[in-house]
């Protein structure tokens, strides 16, 4: 009895540890090798950088030879702007769908949820046609629009569930207080779904940051390339500059890590405790 009680959590932790190691190993490799010379990388890719193999040549190349600052700015602006749109529009749509009963509201919710099941890349051709038609090729706007569309279904789906859980009494108390519907949304609903917003933000931001597909087909120019696209210039058909690739990948992790830390701090539980008994 005692033994099985102990084994349970131990087993769970063992599985989780294994998973963590597997998941982190590639990242560990990337970061470690980005600090090594080319010889060091190829001779022993798993070794830690030592006195002889330590080399910052990758970072130097990335910063000196490419417009990495431009790619960075592009990636960050596309991610952040898309994120703002997804969270704002998603929360507003979710609030409307959760709170107001209008004809076709259920159909609308279903329609929006279908977006989760159909990968947006299936529509790449028509998306490209639309973007060309609007004359937005090679602009960051094109990316922001596509990413917003891509992120909205999941955002609405998750936020709607959260908003539905907010006690009705709170909204009604606010209405009795003479609070307008806009203000209820801004001052009561949004603060209370902060943990959900953070979750949605994390899930939305990572695919956008990592995406190579849409930057490649919609905005491949030198001025609009994102980090993931920019790195490609170091990967040639015959020669790949591994130092530069690994260094730029390492740099690319930094901003997304910072954003993640910001959002994960919002994931506080029990925010509604004390609202209603």
């Amino acid at each position, binding site marked *: 009895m005692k033994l099985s009680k102990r084994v349970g959590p131990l087993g769970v932790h063992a599985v989780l540890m294994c998973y963590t190691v597997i998941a982190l190993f590639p990242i560990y490799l990337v970061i470690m090798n980005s600090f090594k010379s080319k010889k060091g990388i190829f001779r022993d890719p798993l070794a830690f950088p030592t006195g002889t193999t330590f080399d910052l040549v990758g970072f130097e190349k990335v910063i000196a030879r490419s417009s990495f600052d431009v790619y960075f700015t592009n990636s960050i602006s596309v991610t952040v702007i898309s994120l703002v749109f997804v969270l704002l529009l998603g929360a507003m749509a979710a609030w409307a769908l959760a709170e107001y009963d209008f004809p076709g509201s259920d159909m609308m919710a279903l329609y929006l949820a279908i977006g989760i099941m159909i990968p947006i890349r299936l529509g790449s051709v028509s998306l490209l046609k639309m973007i060309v038609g609007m004359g937005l090729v090679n602009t960051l706007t094109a990316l922001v629009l596509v990413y917003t569309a891509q992120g909205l279904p999941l955002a609405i789906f998750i936020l709607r569930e959260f908003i539905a859980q907010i*006690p009705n*009494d*709170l909204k*009604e*108390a*606010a*209405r*009795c*207080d*003479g*609070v*307008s*519907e*806009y*203000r209820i949304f*801004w*001052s*009561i609903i949004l*603060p*209370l779904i902060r943990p959900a917003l953070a979750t949605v933000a994390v899930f939305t931001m990572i695919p956008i940051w990592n995406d190579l597909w849409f930057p490649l087909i919609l905005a491949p120019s030198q001025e609009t390339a994102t980090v993931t696209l920019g790195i490609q210039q170091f990967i040639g058909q015959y020669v790949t500059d591994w130092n530069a690739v690994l260094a730029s990948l390492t740099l690319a992790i930094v901003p997304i890590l910072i954003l993640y830390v910001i959002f994960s701090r919002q994931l506080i539980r029990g*925010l*509604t*405790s*004390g*609202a*209603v*008994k």
Partner: protein
Amino acid sequence: MADIKLSGIKKSYGKAEVLHGIDIDIKDGEFVVFVGPSGCGKSTLLRLIAGLETISDGDLQIDGETVNDMTPSQRKIAMVFQSYALYPHMTVYKNMAFGLTLGKKGPLGGLLGGGENKKLIDEKVQKAAKSLKLEDYLHRYPRELSGGQRQRVAIGRAIVRDPNVFLFDEPLSNLDAALRVNTRLEIAKLHQDLEATIIYVTHDQVEAMTLADKIVVVNGGHVAQCGSPLELYHHPANKFVAGFIGSPSMNFLEGTTTAVHAGSLDVLLDYDNSTASIPVHPDETQIGDKVTIGIRPEHMKEGNDQSFKLSAKVNVVERLGEASYLYLENGENDPLCVKTDGHSITKAGDKVELCADFSAVHVFNAEGNALARTTSDQKYIAPKLSA
């Protein structure tokens, strides 16, 4: 100043009608309690008055103005919810001030500011906090408060808005027994201080009796009776009100009319085949009609020196100290209850003789409506209270 007038208020959800035409007049400054069993429609009625639900049919007037289509804030009501409904991410101070910080002046319905000025708001909040003894808690969050304190914050939030009407939706039902009595007193005192019109919903008839100027007993979407607490107690209009008001509730015995006189009715009781001659107006009651008689536990006593006599076996005795309740064998029906002296030595299993005055007995006809009593015994009729 706010009189409230409900005329023919109906509410249906789809095809199901839950309120079937409610007429109530509420005078300015009156403390009105809606009471009834759960599911009777009393909370719905309150929400209709608040403007949280739309009225299906009928006319609701506040201060002589029809408000059917107005929003809660236009009606100038403030509501205290059973769950308190405090904003969890705001301090006590902000909870109370929130409703004031916004006016309808600014763009987007006050989203970008507007509302009353800060000093005025602060004054109002401090005043309310002082009257509710919340000064020390103004910077705490609701989750850091006890149930009673949260309740007071909810009341404070209503007070600062200085509404025409206060609406309370079962405000005490989440509090423990001791706190409930305290808070009940505080609400009674609040009513005296504010001289405001208060509508209060509860399923607890003790709260209704203790707080109300006027009680509205709601049953199955109808108003069963409306009147002062003592009127309802002494002159229930029907069997439902008779059974609902008073604790423990009234004893009912079935019987058949055997003789009809000008000011009284002879009833043969199924219980022990005895005949009781009860001073009521017979109205249209005929000989042979089934009637129900009702006697309150506190109007019966052990002994045989009064006109109405019963004898029965005691099943259970509850000793409360100041009084003891005897629960008597009554076949398949609910046991009869008698309130007797706290020093009574009667035990469970004893056979006892009980009596009451005929004047204390109520009679209800087959439809459950009460027959008017003709007694002039002051003990059994509602005293005239000067307003």
